[in-house]
């Protein structure tokens, strides 16, 4: 069975640095035979979490939009790459809005306790964070990591790897970066082979 890979672009820009880096990763995954789908968050119709906690009782989100369908797709996939540029030291509001909507999955795991991901299953599901930042600071991704960790934990994915590139302002964009696009392509190729081996 083919390895299913979903790339989620959380940038408000089309074809900017982050989406280009994601594309390179997805091209690599395709090159290894992965079944690839890309979701552009700004084209998806969903609202932010309302913090109503209704899901703590029902395990379902009361908001009817396109977010729960995307989570179903994610749960049925083998690899998820979430991509966001760094804005104000964090991920975009669009991606944060999607991640906050996983509350119903969290509630099922920790409050209702009717959802459980065995360790072996988590190991077979690889989550990858793809990001670019204009600034050169070493810590520019630090506030994003815990959010991405929370996301992958909630959806039963192993936080497998980062594909991150800072200092975009100096490189004049991702295409000026010496290694990032190649690294992304190779990591895309590799993760599909790794998952294939785990599924065999």
């Amino acid at each position, binding site marked *: 069975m083919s390895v299913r890979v979903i790339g989620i672009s959380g940038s*408000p820009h089309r074809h900017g640095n982050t989406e280009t880096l994601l594309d390179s990763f997805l091209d690599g995954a395709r090159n290894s035979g992965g079944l690839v789908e890309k979701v552009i968050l700004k084209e998806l119709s969903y609202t932010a979490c309302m913090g109503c*906690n209704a899901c703590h009782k029902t395990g379902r989100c009361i908001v009817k939009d396109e977010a729960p369908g995307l989570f179903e797709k994610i749960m049925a996939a083998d690899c998820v790459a979430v991509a966001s540029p760094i804005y*104000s*030291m964090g991920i975009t*509001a669009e991606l*944060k809005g999607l*991640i906050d909507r996983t*509350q119903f999955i969290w509630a099922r795991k920790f409050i209702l306790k009717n959802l459980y991901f065995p360790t072996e299953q988590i190991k077979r599901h690889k989550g990858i964070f793809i990001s670019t930042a204009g600034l050169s600071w070493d810590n520019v991704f630090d506030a994003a990591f815990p959010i991405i960790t929370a996301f992958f934990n909630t959806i039963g994915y192993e936080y497998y790897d980062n594909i991150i590139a800072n200092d975009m302002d100096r490189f004049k964009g991702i295409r000026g970066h010496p290694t990032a696009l190649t690294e992304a392509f190779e990591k895309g190729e590799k993760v599909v082979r790794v998952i294939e081996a785990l599924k065999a």
Partner: protein
Amino acid sequence: MPINVLAFAGSPRRGGNSETLLDWVLDPMKHEPDVQVEKIIVVDADINPCKGCNACEVLNYCVQKDGLVSIHDKIVAADIIIFASPIFCMGVSSQAKALIDRAQVFRSRKYVLKLPIVPPERKGKRLGVFLATAGQTWDRVFDGAVMSVKCFFHVIDIPDSDIHYLMIRGVDEKGAILSHKTAQKDAELLGKEMISTLRNRLEAVNRE
């Protein structure tokens, strides 16, 4: 001149823990005759996410004409700016993050266009406050939120030394903060301190 306090309630939940914490900070301020308090409910304020178009780097204003138009002016006019958010998934709420990201127009003004954020006589006089509540009790649960909130305050010309924090862990369900041992007392004290600090600063200016 009255002291202008601008407060952002960044939770989608009305009357929840972070907004209650905010109200406790604002209460003593409201009792002062020379203080004007405005509370903005971020989810009702029509704030779209930043489009990342970078037009503000040239235009010095945001091309999006939404709730941020009036909020922009209020941020410039305020003496004390208070930002309250719950922690969702180890960060501020996405609605609060949208507000932070839209402060990009100030970042462009300050760092790209190198223009002042406030008139010279008000520079260094303003105060920022970050209030947060988290259901989790982890030591590092506020770390990511603080990094983004600092960006917000820095671009509106409030340096680290003028940002004050009150962050409460382990309060999840609505109303949980009401049974917290110290939150209300600390919040009210913080509200009083902010006003007296600001008054001292303004009086120092008047003496000069």
